[in-house]
């Protein structure tokens, strides 16, 4: 009778999942006959009330949610067991306000354009720098309004994957 809670990162919708027995699961108090098979560690075939869903689930590189794909739609889902929530509660406050303050290179390449300098204010969506890799120019944009605290690279520098590029404030 294990219980889970999920949270859709985009829609903020919360769902409650309870395994009632080996064939029946309840989602938000509605019961489903279910069956499943992992076709691969990241691909699960789900059958709920005889309806098929082939769902892929992956860890997201940098966030605590999973990338869930069904049909042509992507969902960002946080899944927690009752125990997880308890642990969260006890440790709450400790990591409060933790945010991404560093921008790392997502792949090896060359910085072909550097648009910011230390101390500069940037707006959400602004292109901070351009990384050329795999024959393509990739724009790295600001995810929110912020100030550039540190610039770790120069134009035309080659960078490795996960190399620190910028520190934000």
């Amino acid at each position: 009778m294990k219980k889970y809670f999920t949270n859709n990162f985009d829609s903020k919708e919360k769902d409650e999942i309870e395994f009632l027995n080996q064939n029946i699961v309840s989602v938000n108090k509605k019961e489903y006959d279910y069956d499943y098979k992992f076709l691969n560690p990241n691909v699960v075939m789900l059958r709920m009330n005889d309806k098929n869903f082939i769902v892929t689930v992956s860890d997201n590189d940098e966030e605590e949610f999973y990338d869930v794909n069904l049909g042509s739609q992507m969902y960002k889902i946080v899944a927690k067991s009752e125990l997880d929530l308890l642990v969260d509660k006890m440790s709450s406050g400790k990591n409060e306000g933790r945010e991404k303050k560093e921008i790392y290179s997502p792949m090896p390449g060359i910085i072909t354009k550097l648009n910011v300098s230390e101390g500069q204010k940037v707006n959400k969506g602004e292109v901070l720098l351009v990384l050329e890799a795999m024959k393509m120019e990739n724009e790295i944009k600001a995810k929110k309004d912020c100030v550039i605290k540190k610039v770790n690279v120069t134009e035309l520098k080659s960078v490795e994957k996960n190399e620190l590029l910028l520190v934000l404030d």
Partner: protein
Amino acid sequence: MFKKILIANRGEIAVRIITSAKEMGIKTVAVYSDFDRYSLFAKMADEAYHIGESPSAKSYLKAEKIIEVAKQSGAEAIHPGYGFLSERGFFAKMCEENGLKFIGPGYKAIDLLGSKTEAKILALKNNVPVVPGTEKPLHDFSLIKNIAKDIGYPILIKASAGGGGKGMRIVKEEADIESSLRMAQNEAKSSFGDDSVFIEKYIESPRHIEFQILADEYGNVVHLGERECSMQRRHQKIIEETPSVIMDEKMRNDMGECAKRIVKAAGYSNAGTVEFIVDTNNKYYFLEVNTRLQVEHPITEMRTGFDLVREQLKIASGEKLSFKQEDVVFKGHTIECRICAEDSENNFMPSTGKITYMKNVLSNGMREDTGIEQGNEISVYYDPMISKLISNGATREIAIEKMKRALRDYKLVGIKSNIAFLLNLLESEEYVSGNYHTQFIEKEFLGRLSSQKSSTDEETNAAVALAAVLFKEQKSLKIIKKAGNNSHSNNFWSNKRTESYR
């Protein structure tokens, strides 16, 4: 016919060339970089030689090394595929000098058509329309104004020393010409130290339409119809189709004859593609000739029944074209989608990593060309194209429906892909009506995309939530079990009902 050829390329196009060569009883020689030691094309070829490190410059672009391997292996000819050395006249010349047949046009035709200016002059000489404009850089104000009037507005001012959009200006009407010209020249002067400019007609919302041609070494040329390649993002084609919805029989004949004239005049042989831009009044202008096989060649193959690689090999070995223009029969409608490793939701950032699961279901009317297998790595070294899906139906509507079904049933895990983006594009009103152009994606589609998240029904929502929970549970089981027993099959840990949840 050749007994053995070398393929100076990698990935899906190397696989494509190897299959046709094998069908013709020709032995195949692959060359591979460190990264490609066990890639599909390198396994499929009869022989495979290591030519260097993973970066192209240290392997697939090493002309001397490739020539050396060709001679060592006893290959008689080299197929360059697309990209890499395929449009480099010097490589075609090196092949010739080393007694190897280059499977493509002669180096003189490559160099001639490789020069934009010379190709434009050749087109004009042969009554092939080009975008009206000046051929020489100009300084003089009033002269420019007069020419602009002749061409007709809107016009485009381009700094002659510029590039990549710098020093470019669109002028919509004569009233703006003076100020725009002044600004463009000032910008050009300060950026490049040279204030001379070209002007040409500005084509709004242009379509990119290209014609496939085949030419033998005896002056016989046929065209195999057009390909509509206007679905582009940053000049990268994403979806191609044939026929083009704007094409009628007369226009196809006219453009096809233009294409034939220009390659004939260039002394061209083998397969090639003549590219045009077409304005909103269906006036077409010659753009350039791609002197090699195109990525999107399969749509022409499916619509005409020809095997273009087979034809290339026949032509290069000195055979005459075995058919005439009137024997080319077009049938049905064909579409290609390029599945790429990129994150459409994050500015199309290329996505690298290992493909841990890859599954298609093709059935009636579908074809897939790929050089990737499950378990392969997508690296930073080469382009991010994973696969080309090609659909073929009696009508355009059927071809679209087949493509959408196949994309929905296509599963790819381990990297991000543009499959959802392709589906969105195919479902756009503009694609369905055929009313799109090369700037459609960037100017119209992308902005609209983020705002349209479709709502989720109760069942889908439940499935998504449950899948996330099962995934979490399996992950923790896996950590507990550590390595676990090794299973050889593709069907990993199946949770049979008996061993299911408590």
